[in-house]
């Protein structure tokens, strides 16, 4: 594999930025945001340069690597600090740095009133660096470093306003639930080392054939756990909603465009494992399917615009996971949807941010309404993203999502039917709740608070939105034109079973999808546009809505099953340690004490008793010796 010495700069630049901003402290307040924006921009440039080099090479020659130094080497456990840039990772690199840069720009203005803006940019840079390491690492252990790095960055950013206890808790929750996933990743790595004897992608890929399915399945399932944790997939999805505590740009970058898609990356990256472990693959599909519906349902009930979008993110990633679980045919579509979603979801989040910006950080959509007159650009960009996610041709989502639905149907047999209908249903619900968001926010009548004076955001904010909007319009078309992306990624995946039994023709799929979407939109239209929307969420709603509002009881469940028992266990153990273990120790001391004061009694002070003692002692002595001798 050809090596390139410039890969490290992709990571080094933003990392440098983060370090400078953190160490410089208040001194950097003046120029911090500038530097913070330049760094990802320049790694974006490096990324483009690498892309150009790649395009210049033949498909097999494209992957490049760079070995920095020997990181850990003990016995047969050897891990180099090595980077790998191939067709897959380049997509991510560009997405991360590109969207990342835009969001940095957006944040310059969005965070301009916050006195800690410099720190914010430091965190963002740290995140970019970690995320790039995640996608560039050439072994699972290197990936692990980036994996927890983004977790840390996300923790810091969610808790950026941690003076609000709720926000601090949200960030902690995110980190801990991510750690549960990370645990899965470490299991995967351990099993890999114990069975295959290496943890590098290349090394494992070579040995897949010699390795038993059981081992691979185990690794696969553990990777899935990891992915679920990072990508907010069922059952580790609960943290994403709370993560919206972070500033909106963070939600856009980390919790929509990039970090949450790391799970999809992991699964795609590990294709050689999943292809050889059908059981694990099936589980991936199931998780994906469940999550996409789960998220969609939650989305229908949220009044908080960001949480609604978060729910939709969860659901969209469900699509990707599902696709990735469909094997070689699905990987490319997963990635494609990941990219398009990166554009339109980031765009919509920024839009939401812009709305909040205008509405004194009000997030309750019931307090919006009729904003399209007041913030036209936001309306347009948001709208384009809306169309994209709905999958209305020719917008981006149309290409990526329909591909997934189609592949799902073509998965074959009852499985295909189930998955297909799930994806279709998901599309319909998506249409419903996104339209709901649209309507509640931009149309209808004003339901603002008194002090709200909505206004269009400054250009620094709408420019990135605009660019992303363009992306959400065009990306799908560009990527799928002549199967560009599919062919681009093709060399990475082995397509030994290329028998596509077409259950449904693409056109039929699109038809069905659009019908579902239409239905969804219609319902939303009649429910929210035809009748007046209450400024306060009505309580007399169906049980389903109530449950949906509570994120389908996910937190209730976690609390009941893990948190409270855990807390009780802790309390019990603390008491036990004090009472039983330390108690035993103290008891021994007490025993000595009491036996001491007991034995003191022997010393009665009467000389005759002492004499008696001697007398008895002598008798015993003689008796004893007698016994011994006999």
């Amino acid at each position, binding site marked *: 594999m050809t090596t390139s010495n410039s890969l490290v700069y992709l990571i080094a630049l933003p990392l440098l930025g983060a370090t400078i901003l953190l160490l410089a402290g208040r001194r950097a307040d003046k120029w911090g945001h500038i530097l913070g924006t330049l760094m990802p921009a320049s790694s974006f440039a490096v990324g483009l340069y690498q892309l150009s080099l790649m395009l210049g090479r033949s498909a097999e020659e494209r992957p490049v690597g760079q070995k920095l130094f020997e990181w850990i080497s003990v016995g047969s456990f050897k891990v180099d600090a090595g980077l790998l840039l191939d067709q897959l990772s380049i997509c991510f690199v560009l997405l991360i740095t590109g969207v990342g840069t835009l969001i940095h720009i957006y944040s310059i203005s969005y965070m301009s009133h916050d006195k800690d803006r410099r720190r914010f940019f430091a965190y963002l840079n740290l995140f970019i660096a970690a995320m790039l390491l995640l996608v560039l690492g050439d072994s699972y252990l290197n990936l692990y470093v980036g994996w927890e790095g983004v977790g840390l960055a996300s923790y810091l950013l969610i808790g950026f306003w941690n003076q609000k206890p709720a926000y601090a808790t949200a960030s902690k929750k995110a980190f801990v639930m991510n750690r549960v996933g990370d645990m899965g990743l470490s299991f995967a790595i351990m099993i890999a080392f114990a069975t295959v004897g290496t943890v590098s992608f290349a090394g494992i890929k070579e040995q897949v054939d010699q390795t038993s399915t059981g081992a691979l399945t185990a690794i696969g399932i553990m990777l899935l756990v990891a992915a679920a944790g990072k990508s907010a997939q069922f059952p580790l999805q609960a943290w994403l909603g709370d993560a919206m505590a972070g500033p909106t740009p963070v939600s856009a970058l980390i919790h929509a465009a990039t970090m949450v898609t790391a799970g999809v990356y992991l699964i795609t990256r590990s294709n050689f494992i999943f292809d050889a472990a059908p059981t694990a693959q099936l589980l991936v599909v199931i998780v994906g399917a469940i999550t996409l519906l789960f998220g969609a349902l939650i989305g229908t009930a949220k009044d908080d615009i960001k949480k609604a979008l978060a729910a939709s993110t969860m659901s969209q990633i469900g699509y990707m996971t599902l696709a990735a679980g469909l094997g070689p045919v699905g990987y490319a579509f997963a990635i494609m949807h990941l990219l398009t979603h990166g554009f339109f979801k980031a765009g919509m989040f920024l839009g939401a941010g812009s709305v909040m910006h205008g509405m004194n950080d009000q997030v309750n959509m019931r307090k919006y309404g009729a904003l399209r007159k007041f913030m036209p650009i936001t309306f347009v960009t948001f709208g384009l993203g809306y169309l994209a996610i709905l999958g209305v041709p020719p917008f981006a989502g149309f290409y990526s999502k329909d591909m997934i639905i189609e592949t799902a149907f073509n998965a074959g047999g009852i499985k295909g039917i189930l998955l297909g209908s799930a994806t279709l249903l998901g599309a319909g619900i998506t249409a419903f709740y996104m339209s709901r968001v649209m309507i509640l926010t931009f149309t209808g009548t004003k339901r603002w608070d008194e002090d709200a004076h909505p206004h269009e955001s400054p250009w620094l904010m709408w420019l990135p939105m605009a660019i992303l909007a363009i992306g959400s319009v065009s990306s799908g078309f560009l990527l799928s034109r002549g199967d560009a992306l599919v062919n681009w990624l093709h060399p990475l995946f082995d397509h030994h079973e290329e028998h596509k039994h077409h259950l449904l023709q693409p056109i039929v799929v699109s038809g069905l999808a659009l019908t579902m979407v239409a239905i969804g939109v219609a319902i939303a239209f009649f429910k929210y546009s035809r009748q007046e929307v209450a400024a306060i969420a009505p309580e007399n709603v169906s049980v389903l809505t109530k449950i949906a509002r509570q994120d389908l009881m996910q937190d209730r469940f976690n609390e009941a099953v893990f948190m409270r028992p855990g807390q009780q266990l802790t309390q019990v153990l603390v008491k036990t340690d004090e009472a039983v273990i330390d108690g035993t120790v103290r008891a021994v001391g007490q025993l000595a004490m009491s036996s001491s004061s007991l034995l003191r009694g022997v*010393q009665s002070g009467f000389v005759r008793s002492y004499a008696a003692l001697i007398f008895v002692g002598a008798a015993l002595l003689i008796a004893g010796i007698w016994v011994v001798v006999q």
Partner: protein
Amino acid sequence: MEFSSPVLNYTLLSPMLILLGGAIIGVLVEAFMSKALRPITQLSVTIGSLILALVQVWRIRNDQSLTAAMGSVVIDGPAVLMQASILIISLISILLIADAQQFTALAASLPGSEEERHALQSGNQVTEVYPLTLFAVAGMMLFPVSSDLITLFVALEVLSLPLYLMAGLSRRRRLASQEAALKYFLLGAFSSAFFLFGAAFLYGYSSSISFSGIRSAVVGGSGNDVFLLIGISFLSVGLLFKVGAVPFHAWSPDVYQGAPTPVTAFMAAATKIAAFGAMLRIYYTVFANAQWSWSPMLIIIAIITMVFGSLVAIAQRDVKRMLAYSSIAHAGFLLTGIIALNKAGLEASLFYLFAYGITTVGAFAVVTLVRDSAGEVTDLNRWKGLGKRSPWVAIAFATFLLSFAGIPLTSGFIGKFSIFSAAYESGATSVVIAGVLSSAVAAFFYIRVIVLMFFTDPVEDGTSVEIPSSLTSITVIFSMIVTIALGVFPAPILDFISNLATFIR
């Protein structure tokens, strides 16, 4: 029948003769010297004779003889070592005894009587304690070197009788002191009766009163074992009483507490050496071949002794009593040296005895320093914060306690290590384990005293440290130096001991 005049090797006997001579001079001084000059004269006579004796012991260190006095005294390496240790201990104890504050002006007077007060005011301080000490020391010197039953018994009495009296000489708390004397006397006499009875049966068993005779009888195995067993057990009672082994220990706490502290120091250190010296000789030479009979019982007694001593010491509130119980525990440790019954055991015991003796004297010396208007303060609760009041005294005491506890870099540790390893070598694992565990218990109360001295704040109750004379300080400093030196660089002493430590039979 015609008598042949006894042949005595005076050079070898000289140490003991010197002491006896000094004692007699002391008696004369007491009788005829003017009261002004008496104390200083007595002191110098005593110290003089002790030093002379020590020099003599040094000079005869390489002579060996079974017939120093017609076979009733044996002079060999261990003998020299024991006598030397006894003399050194006595020397530093004398420096404490020299503090007249401790002793009643007139032992014969009633406590609190006009007579007593007058004697005190007129400075008519009697100084019989010095000759008494010398007699006792002479007895102690003789006890471990005597090699027939008569000498052994006589030596036992010679060392005991003066101690009975000395125990009663305290100036303060005279009632307690006299009580101590009484208890010590009655029980001592009681136990020596056992001793004698045992001796009688040994004689009966072997038809000889000389150790060599008895030994050959034991080796030969001829003769009535019943007599032997009765003999061994009753003789052991007498000896175990002297060393203060459970259940024959009961006197020691009371006597240690009641007696004047300098006497306690002397008694605790020197008597142990003498008694263990005799035990070592008897069990290593005379009874060696009857090990099958006594070893198990001795193991049991040793275990009981160390456990009992360590446990009961925990609850003590009085320094002297606590030290008494700790000395019981140490008697237990020392018994392991006898159980070992091998050269290592002998060497270890000799080292342990010397080290322990020095440390003990040092510890009691510190006790004499802590006083209030009414004299010594032995109540531990009033020792609180001693480390703040007078750090150096406290540090010294702490050192001694750590040595008792057997913390490394103190003589106590080397002693414990060597004696336990000797016992283990001879297969007495149970004793070693018991010893280790009881050391753990013991450490607890030693540390409690240290905590008391350093980590609790002083209570203002007039308790203070006053140093009566530079003599006491000499004792403390000397003991401290030896305690640490023997812990850090024990090699020279150990070599010296291992060169000499072989009984001749």
